[in-house]
Structure formats: C-alpha cells, structure tokens
C-alpha cells in the first residue's frame, strides 16, 4: 500500500528528475564557461531527498531517456546519448546523487559535512565522465581532464556554495504539507 510519506517522496523524486532534465537548458552566463544548472540539481536531489530517493530520481531520469523519452539535453533521447561522449557524466550523476544523499543523511545539516559530501559527489561525476570521454574520443587521460574537468571546476565550486542556502530554504517546505499533519511512518521522520 502507498503510505502518504512514500507517495510524497515519490512525487518529489519525480519532479526533481524533471528539474534535472530541465537543468540542462538553464545556464548562468557568467565567465567563459556558462554555468549549467543540471548538476546543481543532482547535488540538491541528494541533499534534499536522501540517498535512496535521490538515486531513484536520477535512475528514473536515465531510464526514461534510455527508453526513448526526450528528457536529455536539447530534447534528445535514446541509448545513443548514454553511450556518447558525455554519457559517462550522466551515469556519474546516479552514483553522485546516491553518495551525496547518504552522506547528507549522516551529516544532519552540518554545513561542513554537506559541503564535503557535495565535493565528493562532484568528483564522482568526473570519475565516471572523464575516463569515459577519454575512452570514447581516444584522447590520452591528461587531455581529457583538460577539456572535461578543469573548465567546470570553478562553476562547480559556485554551485556547491549556492546549494547550501537553497537547501536550507527548501527543507522546511518538505517537512510539512500545507494544512496537513504528516504522521511518522516506521519511526522515520516524516
């Protein structure tokens, strides 16, 4: 049976997946490399939803894309995107969301630990993305790092810095539903 908590988390995870999909269109044009919001939303999914639901959110996004629903950047879809040059980053999102979520659950809203979780999460994205890029393009690893990692580091630092106040502001919204008292289920904090 669907409990209220799990139904709510399911809807949150689905909408977070939609945000991740939309994130590839949204960019802040500051500096030479525009800061794309997609991985900010992946990190936020981890912070806000916790490990399992964040992983579910990204997994649904990837599954929908792999099965031909137009959710990837520029409305593309299909396996072609996952095995293409940037496919490694997409797979990395899954691991990153899960890890950030697990660590954020343990961090219990301590800023330093949350920042650490997001730094590790971002590194995990590149740990999947850069070797894949190198493999696919046949570039040596140091060149792949030069084009697939360095240009994004500053943007990632800004994203991590912005994710903390955003998660602070959004968390209270998740705790209570307007006008409805949410009962704790299985000893979980609702």
């Amino acid at each position, binding site marked *: 049976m*669907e409990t209220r908590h799990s139904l709510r988390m399911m809807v949150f995870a689905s909408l977070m997946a939609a945000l991740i999909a939309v994130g590839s269109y949204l960019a802040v044009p500051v500096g030479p490399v525009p800061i794309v919001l997609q991985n900010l939303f992946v990190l936020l999914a981890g912070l806000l939803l916790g490990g399992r639901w964040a992983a579910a959110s990204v997994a649904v996004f990837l599954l929908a894309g792999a099965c031909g629903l137009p959710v990837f950047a520029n409305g593309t879809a299909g396996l072609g995107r996952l095995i293409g040059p940037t496919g490694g980053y997409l797979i990395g999102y899954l691991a990153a969301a899960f890890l950030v979520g697990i660590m954020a659950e343990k961090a219990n809203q301590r800023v330093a630990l949350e920042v650490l979780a997001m730094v590790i999460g971002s590194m995990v994205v590149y740990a999947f993305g850069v070797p894949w890029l190198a493999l696919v393009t*046949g570039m040596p690893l140091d060149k792949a790092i030069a084009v697939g990692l360095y240009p994004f580091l500053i943007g990632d630092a800004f994203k991590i810095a912005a994710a903390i106040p955003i998660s602070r502001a959004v968390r209270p919204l998740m705790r209570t539903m307007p006008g409805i008292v949410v009962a704790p289920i299985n000893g979980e904090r609702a």
Partner: protein
Amino acid sequence: MAELSVFAYRQGNSAAHRLDPRIKLISISLLSAAILAAQAAGLFVATGLIIGATIYCRVSLRQIGHELRWLLFMLAAVWGIRALVTPGETLFSWSVFSVSRTGVLTGAIICWRWVIIIFLGLTVSVTTRTEDIRAAVEWFLRPFPWLSPHRIGTMIGLLVRFIPVILTHAREMGAAQRARCVENRKNPIYRLRVLGLPLLRRTFVTADHLTIAMEARCYGQGRTAYAWHFGREDGIVLVGMVLLSSVISFC
C-alpha cells in the same frame, strides 16, 4: 525546447505508431547493440534503414539538424581528436599535427554509429506516446522483485509531464529577473541562488499539491492495467529485427 522538440511524440496512425511498444524497445536495443558491433558494411545497411524510417516518420532533416547542432558539433570534435591522436600511417601533417589514416577511419565509424543510434531513438520518440513507453518499461521491470514497476511507471509519467511545466516556470522567472536587472549582478553564487531557489521552491509546492490531488483520487498500487495488443505484425517485426540485427552485426 522540450515541448517543441523534433523528438516529441507526433500523432499518427502509421504501422510504426501501431506497433507494440515492447517490440519497439526490444528492436532498438537489438539494433543499437548490433550497430555498436558493426563495421562499415553493416553501417551502410543500418543507414539505409534509418533514412527510410526518418522519411517514413515525416521528420524534416533540417529541423533535426537544427536540434542536434551541438551534438553534431561534439561528434565532429570527437572525430577530429581521434584523427589527431591515433597513431598510424600519416595521411598528411602540418607543423606539430599529423592526421593518421586509422584515426580518420575509426573516428568516422564511431561517429557514424552514434548518429545512427541517435536517429533510432528519434524514430521511437516520434511514434510512441509516453503512456506506451511507460507501460512497456513497467512490463520489462516486472521480473525484478525488488523494484516496483507501477511506481517507476508513475514516476516516468510525472517526469515527462512536468518537464514543460518546470520549463515554463523557469522562463517566467528568468524574464522576471531580467526585468529586475539581474544581469548587472556579477556574483555567480547570487545568480545561481536567485535562479535555483524560486524554481525549486515552486516545484516543491507543485509536488505537494500534486500529492494531495493524487491522494484525493485514491492513488494506489491497484491501477487499471494497460491493454496490450500483440498481433501477427508485431511477431513478424520482432523476427525481422532479430534477423536484421544479426545481419548488421556480422557485416
């Protein structure tokens, strides 16, 4: 953007539209795997098939080119890098750069495979409703006991439904902030916060309303089952695709 993309579903009543979505997913998986294993001859066969399918789906090539311009640019870059870094017999060289024959050939084959697989995805996206893909995904996930196919199906449905909604929200917020001269603020953390926060807040409020609406309509596991129509044509297509994939992969 998402709702106007060439990759969006188009109404129609062609054989490709009527085909069982499960068969479509099996077909593209088989064909993708075959194409990844194929060499030039197999790729020619697949290209012919894809050109036929694209014309059949009535998608204009110009539109596709426009939508995929960044992707094509990326593929061209991959080809260029491959040509430069792969060692082998030199075709021509200019100062420190030398283009090798094997690099050009392997790069071309790799990019060609991607283009075909992307077009395969396009044919499925254009001819299949979200509802059908969702039902097919649920059907394929049934054998896994630790997954809840209904829930995953619902999540996929919500994801696709809410992409245009969130995109509209994002555009409204972008316009409102430009009207307030956000472009004069150079601090990227500030910019990220004022773009991300209202979007996230609005999305979560929407999610809350949606949860209440779903509960009010007694959402649960007992959903009305999708009506499958597996006909003779579906069987023929399936056998045809298995044969075609083996031909492509061994060519």
